[in-house]
């Protein structure tokens, strides 16, 4: 072990940086490890906003926010976790503003808030349509102010587990090459999602589920892994995100006949229904032949040039660059795309996992705030509020406990495993496996799910995992070997795909993002008002269940 800290945060997006700041302010020696520079993190691509009941645009309170979130989650969210989020959200947003976040403003100079999907009040605070960008930069500014050390471009690969505790991380130094073990009294995973499991995804290339897979390999359970959210407005062919803020500002969704088709699916909320509802509606329109080249149309024309230029300039830039469409004059062709993993590492409301010393925050975690369907604007809020809480708890624990041990045998094992991979010279390179995985997941585990397709996907993932066993890394060098790290990422993704398929087959109902219209079209609270829980044992997935925490809201029929 070459270096040691009280707290090590893996990942430096919004959750990671917020956790590191909190740990630093609590007096801990904290460091961050990130495979990309902090401001490159995918939190920065969040566009529409962050939900907090500030009440700047209407009468609002945390309880309304909590109810909307519970209902949005299709009652699979843990209500204690949701209440904490909604209670602490307003102060956490004010904190961001005091740090300098460049929020858009109301006419009286307060933080502006816009309507968002499935929210009863205009609750989404925003910075035009670059809210994530603004937040990631303000958090990075605070990291610089505190001079929090960051292992930049270090690829975290393995958790160090010794004596029944997580005691550090083994990482590959991308710029210089070589493995380095970084000891820590507590480790916080903040590595984000795994959208790269799909071809059409809003997620960055970096979103390969590293933290989920590392936790799984360390014996920690993953929760609700079948719950992958499909965002209703992404651009063909690769899935670039067009913000829900468009619909918050009043945009229409039209089919090929120029009908606002949501009248048949969500007659009250229309374009501001929840994401799962709208993605299913779009997919139905497309499947039944009322789409346009596999898309529906997002129409902003009636908003007018001024409003589009002021509040949706980033959206305009994206649609002009990637779809060749100026939304001032033409509707944007959009379709559902993989966007956000509600599932993840099973934690309590302080981010603790079942492994002492290991924590998780943000998209990598499943507290669960989002249940079966996340509301737009709640993800950024979760990164901030739970990033803060987890940073606090992890630093308190670290400051109260003293020893760290990274056994030499653990380091030696990692070196050996890596050498075996790099020494292999004959075999298949990873990219074909990666592409096949993403294409088949999109077809067989997408917006709508069929039993036989999920079973087929299980078999496909199995065979891809077998092929992966003999995969070859072409680049044998030490300096910036992204060929190596991309191969390691694919190993993470393959295991997560298996977890998702097993969980999906087990949940024999339709709830939130998990839609089985052909065999189990309804929600079944009697049997499935509970979380799926998967662990990795002897090279295979083991399934278990966990009850949902209810505080004040009993399940009701969910319509918008």
């Amino acid at each position, binding site marked *: 072990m070459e270096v040691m800290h009280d707290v090590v945060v893996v990942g430096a997006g919004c959750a990671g940086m917020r956790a590191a700041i909190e740990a630093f302010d609590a007096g801990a020696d904290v460091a961050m490890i990130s495979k*990309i*520079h902090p401001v*490159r993190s995918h939190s*920065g*691509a969040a566009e529409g906003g962050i939900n907090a009941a500030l009440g700047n645009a209407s009468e609002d309170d945390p309880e309304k926010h909590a109810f909307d979130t519970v209902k949005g989650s299709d009652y699979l969210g843990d209500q204690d976790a949701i209440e904490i989020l909604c209670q602490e959200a307003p102060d956490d*947003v*004010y904190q961001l*503003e*005091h*740090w*300098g976040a*460049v*929020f*858009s403003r109301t*006419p009286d*100079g*307060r*933080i*502006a808030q816009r309507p968002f999907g499935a929210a009863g009040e205009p609750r989404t605070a925003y*910075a035009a349509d*670059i809210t*994530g*960008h603004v937040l990631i930069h303000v958090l990075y500014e605070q990291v*610089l102010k505190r001079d929090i050390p960051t292992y930049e471009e270090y690829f975290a690969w393995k958790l160090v587990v010794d004596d029944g505790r997580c005691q550090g991380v083994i990482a590959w130094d991308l*710029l210089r090459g070589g493995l380095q073990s970084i000891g820590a009294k507590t480790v916080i995973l903040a590595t984000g999602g795994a959208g790269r499991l799909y071809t059409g995804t809003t997620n*960055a*290339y970096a979103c390969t589920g590293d933290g989920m897979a590392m936790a799984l390999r360390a014996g920690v359970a993953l929760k609700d892994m079948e719950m992958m959210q499909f965002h209703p407005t992404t651009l063909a*062919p*690769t899935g*670039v*995100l067009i913000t829900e803020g468009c619909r918050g500002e009043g945009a229409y969704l*039209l089919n090929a*006949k120029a*009908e*606002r088709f*949501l009248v*048949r699916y969500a*007659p009250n909320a*229309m374009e501001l229904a929840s994401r799962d509802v709208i993605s299913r509606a779009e997919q139905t329109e497309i499947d039944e032949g009322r789409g346009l080249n596999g898309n529906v149309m997002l*129409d902003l024309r009636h908003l007018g*040039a001024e409003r589009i*230029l002021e509040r949706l*300039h*980033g959206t305009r*830039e994206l649609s*002009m*660059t*990637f779809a060749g469409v100026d939304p*001032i004059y*033409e*509707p944007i062709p959009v379709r559902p795309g993989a966007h956000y993993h509600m599932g993840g590492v099973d934690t309590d409301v302080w981010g603790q996992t079942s492994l002492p010393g290991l924590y998780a925050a943000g998209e990598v975690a499943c507290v669960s705030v989002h249940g079966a369907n996340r509301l737009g604007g709640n993800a950024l809020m979760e990164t901030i509020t739970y990033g803060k809480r987890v940073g606090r708890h992890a630093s308190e624990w670290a400051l109260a406990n003293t020893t760290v041990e990274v056994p030499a045998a653990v380091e030696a094992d990692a070196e050996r495993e890596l050498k075996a991979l790099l020494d292999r010279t004959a075999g298949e*390179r990873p*990219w074909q496996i990666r592409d096949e995985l993403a294409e088949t997941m999109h077809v067989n585990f997408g917006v709508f799910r069929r039993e036989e397709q999920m079973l087929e996907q299980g078999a496909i993932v199995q065979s891809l995992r077998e092929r992966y066993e003999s995969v070859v890394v*072409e*680049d044998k060098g030490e*300096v*910036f*070997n*992204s*060929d190596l790290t991309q191969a390691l990422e694919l190993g993470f993704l393959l295991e997560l795909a298996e977890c998702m398929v097993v969980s999906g087959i087990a949940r024999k109902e339709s709830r939130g993002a998990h839609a089985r219209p052909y065999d189990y079209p309804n929600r079944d609270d009697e049997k499935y008002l509970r979380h799926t829980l998967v662990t990795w044992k002897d090279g295979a997935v083991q399934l278990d269940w966990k009850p949902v925490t209810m505080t004040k809201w009993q399940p009701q029929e969910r319509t918008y």
Partner: protein
Amino acid sequence: MALKIWRYDAVKGERALEEYEVDAPDWATLLDVLDIVKDRHDGTLAYRKSCRMMICGSCGMRMDGAAVLACKTRMVDIAESGHVPVISAMGNMPIVKDLVVDMNPFWGKIRAVQPWLEPGYSDPGEKEHIVSQERMDTIHKESLCIMCGCCVSECNSMEADPDFLGPAALAKGMRFVGDARDRATVERLQSYSEEHGIWDCTRCYFCQERCPKGVDPRDAIAKLGAEAMREGIDSDMGARHAKWFVTSAKTTGWLRETELVPKTQGIAKSMKEVTFAMGLLKHGKVPPPFPPHVAKHVDEARALYDIVKQEGAQGAAGIVQSEHALARLEFVHESGAEERDPYGPDSFPEPLPPGEGAGQ
């Protein structure tokens, strides 16, 4: 399509220009093409990437000598023209491998401008600061910066003086100087006005030209200069130089070059230039300083000066900026341009009212 890539092997210290021929779909960006090269042709190719939607700032590089974001650069037109573009690493930063540069010098300069809000209070109060949208808008362009490094790559001043703070860091500085909530404006302006700061920019506008996000870093530097002078922070030669331009234009209607040197560098320093000046004088390159030559239409220059004064725009607000951020994505509302009807005969039809239409 074909493209050439400058490869660099850090261990051997060797550079080589290699050509690749790949099949790419019509929608491919430069980043997509690099991915195809890495997957199907050469796994050792190194470049940075992440979001592929112009917000993370990872994939700055050069195409045919000019900095671009690879994910923003569509290749179809280039491919169809038959041109073979040359891809290389960004400039002004050491190359680590192939298209990957060492960004540490870049981040060091960002740190050097103290890039965090100094709100000047200990108790922030329970709610947010009250700031008008109009006031926030003054730092709109600067807050769009994704720190990709394209501006720094192209910076001519930095090529001459590697210690120059550079366009990205100075734009970040303006993001705080222009922020109504910041209370360290004077300290910031003093520090940014030192050597290697605001006044070392040569105004070549390459940063402004090449910024993929419309941050307009040169405008930010001009705004910093104007704010510094408003605060009376004008002891730097660059500031004195700018001030003399104004005085000179106002009094004589043109540039009094003979006085420019002493006014900018001070009497003592400019004594060293006397021999040089005498040489110029001998060849008729310098008008005699006394009496000052006054332009025939000096009234016009003075009137112009008065108009600017009457406008009352102080500091940064007085800087005439180039196109509004992102306006370079053509927006036709200029005079003479034909008004385009979003609901014209060739457009997608106007939405039917909900409930109308054939449905299923």
